[in-house]
């Protein structure tokens, strides 16, 4: 009992220490001076109640029926279902079903829903790309957003200075990002785990700062605006087509509706995601894909089996960057404007969170996680509490399901004793 009492007192004191000074006292500017005010009664009551709750819970922890089994009480799916859900074949079917759903989505969803879905698809694409680097090859990359920026700016610059269209710029953007990935990856890939993390973070920041400071080329903080939207075989979706192009509605003789543009963008994003999914699924079964995963599991064993770790890592890094480049150029097209502020570290963190939350290596998981993360960010009802909940969800998810939302089983053999 006395031990419980001690813990209870300690926990309560801790709770008060972390909540009262920051939540219960408020610095406010009165005129030009600073004053401390007490928070409103509701906040103080909440802090008080939380403290009392903490105290009683810690005190009676052992006696509460089933409190110890709290973890077991959380909703869990039976083992059979869990097993079935994580089978690669099941996940393939689910992905197929999702793709079908995605294809018919624009016919049922409203304009805003289609737009949000487009945003989700961008993140799915980024998640798939980063998954190669982090999930498959096990390289912690905190500067992935840099390649995304390279892709976006490649299209923006090509459109601005050379008048390239989206379809022509798309492969170039991918190539450009791949080149950057290769060039940056080459010197740093011999670094281990966390050193690699901070260096990639540094590269991401350097790319952003350079984009911001090279005002003559990149437009500096203003970025590049009026990037053309993609066309359908030369048909523009604008109300009035730019020179040399015909409008989509003009060609088909239907009234102009701007929803077409949104739907068309969505379909392009979907196409890109499908392409990425297809490529990854093939690659994972090829020797190179197996090599990535082998390297993640045990680098020394790989080396002794004759794999060149630098080449393997570099290929993962470059391929990941390529997808970021595609996603970037699509982002530029959707947005019509790129500025360096769209490519901050928090974006990298968000993509990484999608990969980890989804269950590293699992594509279905990434799709699910991208949906969750984008919708979390879009919760306008909670307004100012949005990011708070976003952060909390990341922590709680990691504690509750560290393996991710929907991890994938790998084909494995078990020795039976």
């Amino acid at each position, binding site marked *: 009992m006395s031990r419980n009492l001690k813990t209870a007192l300690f926990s309560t004191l801790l709770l008060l220490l972390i909540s009262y000074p920051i939540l219960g006292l408020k610095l406010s500017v009165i005129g030009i001076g600073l*004053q401390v005010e007490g928070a409103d009664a509701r906040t103080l009551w909440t802090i008080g109640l939380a403290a009392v709750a903490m105290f009683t819970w810690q005190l009676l922890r052992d006696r509460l029926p089933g409190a110890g089994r709290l973890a077991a009480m959380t909703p869990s799916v039976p083992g059979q279902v869990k097993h079935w859900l994580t089978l690669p074949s099941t996940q393939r079917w689910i992905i197929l079903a999702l793709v079908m759903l995605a294809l018919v989505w624009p016919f049922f969803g409203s304009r805003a829903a289609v737009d949000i879905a487009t945003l989700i698809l961008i993140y799915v694409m980024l998640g798939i790309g980063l998954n190669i680097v982090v999930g498959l090859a096990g390289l912690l990359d905190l500067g992935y957003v840099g390649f995304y920026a390279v892709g976006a700016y490649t299209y923006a610059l090509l459109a601005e200075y050379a008048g390239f269209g989206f379809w022509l710029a798309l492969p170039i953007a991918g190539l450009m990002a791949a080149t950057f990935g290769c060039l940056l990856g080459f*010197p740093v890939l011999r670094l281990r785990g966390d*050193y690699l993390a901070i260096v990639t973070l*540094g590269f991401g920041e*350097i790319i952003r700062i350079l984009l911001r400071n090279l005002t003559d080329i990149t437009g500096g903080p203003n970025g590049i605006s009026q990037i053309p939207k993609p066309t359908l075989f030369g048909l523009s979706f604008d109300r009035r087509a730019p020179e040399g192009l015909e409008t989509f509605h003009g060609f088909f003789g239907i009234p102009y509706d701007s929803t077409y543009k949104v739907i068309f963008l969505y379909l392009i994003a979907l196409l890109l995601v499908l392409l990425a999914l297809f490529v990854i699924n093939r690659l994972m079964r090829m020797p190179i894909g197996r090599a990535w995963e082998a390297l993640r599991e045990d680098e020394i064993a790989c080396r002794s089996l004759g794999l060149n770790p630098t080449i393997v890592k570099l290929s993962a890094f470059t391929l990941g960057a390529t997808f970021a480049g595609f996603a970037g150029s699509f982002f530029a097209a959707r947005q019509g404007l790129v500025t360096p502020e769209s490519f901050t570290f928090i974006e990298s963190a968000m993509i990484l969170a999608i990969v980890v939350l989804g269950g590293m290596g699992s594509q279905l998981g990434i799709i699910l996680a991208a949906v969750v993360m984008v919708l979390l960010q879009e919760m306008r009802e909670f307004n100012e509490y949005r990011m708070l909940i976003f*952060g909390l969800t990341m*922590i709680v998810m990691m504690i509750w399901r560290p393996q991710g939302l929907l991890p994938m089983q790998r084909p494995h053999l078990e020795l039976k004793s």
Partner: protein
Amino acid sequence: MPELYHYLQQLVNGLTIGSTYALIAIGYTMVYGIIGMINFAHGEVYMIGSYIAFIAITLLAMAGVDSLLPIMFVAFAASMIVTSAYGYSIERFAYRPLRGGNRLIPLISAIGMSIFLQNMVMLSQDSKDKAIPSLLPGNFVLGESAMSGVTISYMQVLIFVVTFLAMLGLSLFISRSRLGRACRACAEDLKMANLLGINTNQIIALTFVIGAALAAVAGVLLGMQYGVINPHLGFLAGIKAFTAAVLGGIGSIPGAVLGGLLLGVAEAFGADLFGDQYKDVVAFSLLVLVLLFRPTGILGRPEVEKV
């Protein structure tokens, strides 16, 4: 002569900013040294330390206390106690349940914690800048006049002194005390230390507490130096301190100090040479360069790979 003064001034500026990087970097490096995780939320703890100091200072000012020593004492004490509580609780709530799994998982949890804390402070204290008047105004001037000579403010001197004392205290604690020895044992081999009867959970918690308290020291010092805080200052400071820790060799405490000072000086001279906007580019480029030639940082131990 003015040229020399100018570069001397930049050196002093760099060392000042560098010593606070060093104080924050120690928190990263100690946690990394023992459990091998990057505590991304550390920068936010520093930010909270600044807020507590400002609240304490403002409360005292409202109560009519205006002599420097009691104000500083209360600010340091209050902020170190509260951030220690934060350090402990963060570890207990967000990291301990995740220990032993994939290394990426605590990292994501830490990023989540960082977002959470920043927004919590923003909600309760709003996002406006909060400012206090200089508590310790005044300069030493080397050379003919303030415009052409080297100026070293009393505040800068205070930062050097406090940083030095904190480092001294910490190294004595680590090398001489029982708990310090336990810390070193844990850093060497966590499992073995546990087998030998060291309460590793306690030691890990202690590491977080010490790191948080040092971040609070940095928070109070920088809060007084610049006189302005907002809920966003933790992120950049955290990234820079983390860079400093890696630069010096993560896991090594003298490395963190060296890395911090080096980074500060590089930033000051980088800003001087290429312009202020390239400061961060210089900092990160230095990091990349150093890591290319010494992949484990300046004072990091080369890691032996085991099968």
